[in-house]
């Protein structure tokens, strides 16, 4: 474990950091330490010892070198919005706030369809910048923007395996990473991908020469370094969109029907975005505070398993053809398209454009509304299609047991808990199965119950051979020991690249002294 957390050593570190980065960007004032100590998850907050705001890759390098010299942990942070307690410094140390001063778009190129950005560039900015340029004729570009807030860091989402809304078409966001700049635990700067090769420039493929070393940094939660720059692919985004919500004609086995529809539709590769939501999620997207119905009651008459589909086209004719195919597929699977004027006007009220298009930046708004009650639980995993109905059914039983109040008048629906299917992966190879519920972060009893349900959900997922999509709620302890050789290699890698365990120590159980 790091040994540098003592008053004397930290005072020296503070001074060195101030000299290296600039006094105004370094602080150990308790007010600063408190404001960087917590997120909204069930993971308890911890204070760092020093907060630093670097302005460049070289600044980050200086920070890491000073930290290494004095054996003080380093924890990187972007927006701080995450589902894993990922920015909480478990052992104190230096909190590196990457977004406040490193927020520039460094390059945008419609020839190679790429954009190069710093950590502070947020999804809404990435989207807006790309969308203002066309790759051909009137076809603008767009990033595979993560299904997250418009206010969160694009870079952090990509390297943290953020799931893009356009997963079904382009794969997940890690496949759109062209190159990265990392500052390693020893302070070395490493570039990956084609931008790392002299004179090559940017080639929009997801790997560099030889062995693909970039992967070790993906979803590493800062264990192997800090990313200060990323180049990602952009994609053509056709200008016209149609949005649909499908529901099952006959409610029985609506999830199975939705799943079949997802498979069939994914394998036609014509949708831009597919998302099976649930009533509770839909309710939370209704951002009209004047709605007279209590949110829970609304769930009773919303679709249980609505499937949201977006298709794009350059012409109405193209959209007409895609729509015809879409409707045929839906009918084959026992689904029908809801009347958009009715429900979706309510849902997307205030959003000038449909969900996930220009309103891609509206995702920030839409999802923001979801958080109304407090904190947002979202546990997600990679899984094939077949286990999903059983997993969903078991999740609902967990909700009944651990979450829903015993009052019989309160239905499971009224708790707004439910399951989603995100992704899907291209051609429905896999799905991102997600469970949702919300808790009141200000209510300690609620937080306790949430923690139990989260744990149980994690166990449920693993029992079905479904892999948690990323480091969720520090459940690495549940998950990683099941991975045999992989965990051994991971621990070896940690020993090799960060022998003093300074880079975000204990964010994953990868050291022999982890407790």
């Amino acid at each position, binding site marked *: 474990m790091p040994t540098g957390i003592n008053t004397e050593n930290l005072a020296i570190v503070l001074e060195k950091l101030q000299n290296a980065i600039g006094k105004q960007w370094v602080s150990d*004032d308790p007010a600063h330490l408190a404001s960087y100590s*917590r997120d909204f998850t069930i993971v308890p907050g911890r204070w760092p010892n020093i907060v630093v*705001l670097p302005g460049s890759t070289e600044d980050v390098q200086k920070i890491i070198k000073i930290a290494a010299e004095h054996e003080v942990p380093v924890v990187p942070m972007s927006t701080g919005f995450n589902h894993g307690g990922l920015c909480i410094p478990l052992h104190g140390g230096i909190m590196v706030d990457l977004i406040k001063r490193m927020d520039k778009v460094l390059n945008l190129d419609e020839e190679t369809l790429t954009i190069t950005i710093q950590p502070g560039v947020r999804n809404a900015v990435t989207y807006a910048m790309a969308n203002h340029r066309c790759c051909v004729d009137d076809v603008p570009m767009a990033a595979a923007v993560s299904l997250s807030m418009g206010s969160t860091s694009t870079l952090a989402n990509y390297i943290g395996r953020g799931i893009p809304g356009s997963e079904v078409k382009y794969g997940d966001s890690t496949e759109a990473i062209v190159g990265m700049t990392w500052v390693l635990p020893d302070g070395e700067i490493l570039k990956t991908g084609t931008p790392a090769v002299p004179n090559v420039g940017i080639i929009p493929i997801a790997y560099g020469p030889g062995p693909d070393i970039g992967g070790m940094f993906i979803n590493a939660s800062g264990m192997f370094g800090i990313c200060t720059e990323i180049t990602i692919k952009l994609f053509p985004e056709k200008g016209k969109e149609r949005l649909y919500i499908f529901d099952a004609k006959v409610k029985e086995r609506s999830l199975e029907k939705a799943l079949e529809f997802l498979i069939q539709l994914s394998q036609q590769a014509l949708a831009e975005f597919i998302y099976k939501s649930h009533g509770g999620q839909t309710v939370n997207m209704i951002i009209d505070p004047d709605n007279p119905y209590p949110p829970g009651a609304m769930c009773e008459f919303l679709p249980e398993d609505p499937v949201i589909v977006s298709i794009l086209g350059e012409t109405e004719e193209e959209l007409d053809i895609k729509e015809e195919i879409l409707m045929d597929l839906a009918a084959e699977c026992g689904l029908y398209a809801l009347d958009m004027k009715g429900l979706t006007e309510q849902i997307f009220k205030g959003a000038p454009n449909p969900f996930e298009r220009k309103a891609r930046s509206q995702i920030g708004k839409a999802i923001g509304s979801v958080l109304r009650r407090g904190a947002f639980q979202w546990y997600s995993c990679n899984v094939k299609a077949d286990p999903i109905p059983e997993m969903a059914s078991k999740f609902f039983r967990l909700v009944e047991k651990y979450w829903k109040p015993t009052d019989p008048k309160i239905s499971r629906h009224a708790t707004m808990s439910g399951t989603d299917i995100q992704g899907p992966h291209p051609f429905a190879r896999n799905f991102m199965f997600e469970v949702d519920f919300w808790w009141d972060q200000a209510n300690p009893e609620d937080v306790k119950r949430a923690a139990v349900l989260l744990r149980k959900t994690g166990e449920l997922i693993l029992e079905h051979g479904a892999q948690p999509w990323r480091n969720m709620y520090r459940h690495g302890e549940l998950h990683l020991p099941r991975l045999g050789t992989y965990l051994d290699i991971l621990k070896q890698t940690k020993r090799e690249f960060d022998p003093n365990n300074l880079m975000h120590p204990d964010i994953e159980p990868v050291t022999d002294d982890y407790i």
Partner: protein
Amino acid sequence: MVDLKAKLGRNVGQLIQYRNDAWKCVRCGLCRMIDTADVTSDQFVDNCPSGIFHKFETFYPAGRHELIRCLTADPPELGYTEVLHKAIFTCTGCGYCQNLCNSFKGLQPTNSFQSLKDFANRKWGVRSEHNALIQSIINYDNPWLSPRKPRGTWARKVKDFKIKDAGKEKVEVLYFPGCNAAYVAEINPVAKATARILHLAGIDFGILGEKERCCGSTAFRVGAVDMFENYRRENIRQLNALGVKTMVTACAGCHSTFAHCYAGDLDFEVVHIVEYIERLIQQGKLKFRKELKDVRATYHDPCHIGRYSKIYDAPRNVLKAIPGVTFKEMVRIKENSLCCGSGGGVKSFDPNMALGVASIRLEEARLAAGANTVVSCCPFCEINLGHAAAGGDMKVVDLLQLVSEAMGE
């Protein structure tokens, strides 16, 4: 049940009642930036003035929420530090975070940070930077350290027509200039212009002159809530006794204070002069006789008539009606307007920040709107932006000044 209709500046209570809000902040970061649907580039994105200037999370709403959580814990998890105090008193109260967050999560960040200032003042005493203006209000009924008597001086300099004394004569409309218009030389013309416009429109109006007292906004915004409450009671008594139907003001701060902080207790409606002018133009009662030259204008939405009172279109309609004015918007406008940086007592507490943010705003005017003139409807904005513009090519004027100039003789 969350109060989804929480209004800015209303019912700001004890800090403890915001503790749950502090827990519920999910650090989504939406409050740091303009509405994500309105983002067009990597410029002009951020929108929390103290955050933009000071950068640390502590100066953003999420950071302040954590301070509230720590201070309301039992025992408190934080004690006094200069940084803590600075984080508390650099909130300009611009309302952007509450305007955005309230409709999603029902939180009231601006109100909670206002309450935080009150808490800090009670716990640690009023800041020395604010002491002077609070004492000035106590002693002189204005924050400008000026005696009461000159409050009516500007009116005595109006020669074309006589302005009635609303304290002595019954009038339909009370014109409330506010402290800035009365005491700040750069803002005097606003008072004169307002009076002229009301006169030309044939409105039966009067002023209180030296009997006018501060609306209490300054005291409220720096967290001297008890003093504000005293002022409020006195003002209500005084103003209601006048028997007016309408109060018109040209000061965004006064307008917001009377319209929201006094809401329900006044026997008259509160209107900002710009809405009046728009109406007069539409009715043909106000005509422009002079074409202005080389005015490439952009409009800076003041927080207190913008987000607080939702008056966005009237000033723009008026500006666009003035002959010779070419108008172009900045990026951060209307609900997204970037605060000038001086509100909430920040001008006196952290003048560097006030000027720094103002400079950023002027840069936006220059780059995004190609403007040579920033027009606003708030004396605080104009003072602060004017200070930042000093020595440069950018002009900062009140809309009333342009209106008056275009009206000619």
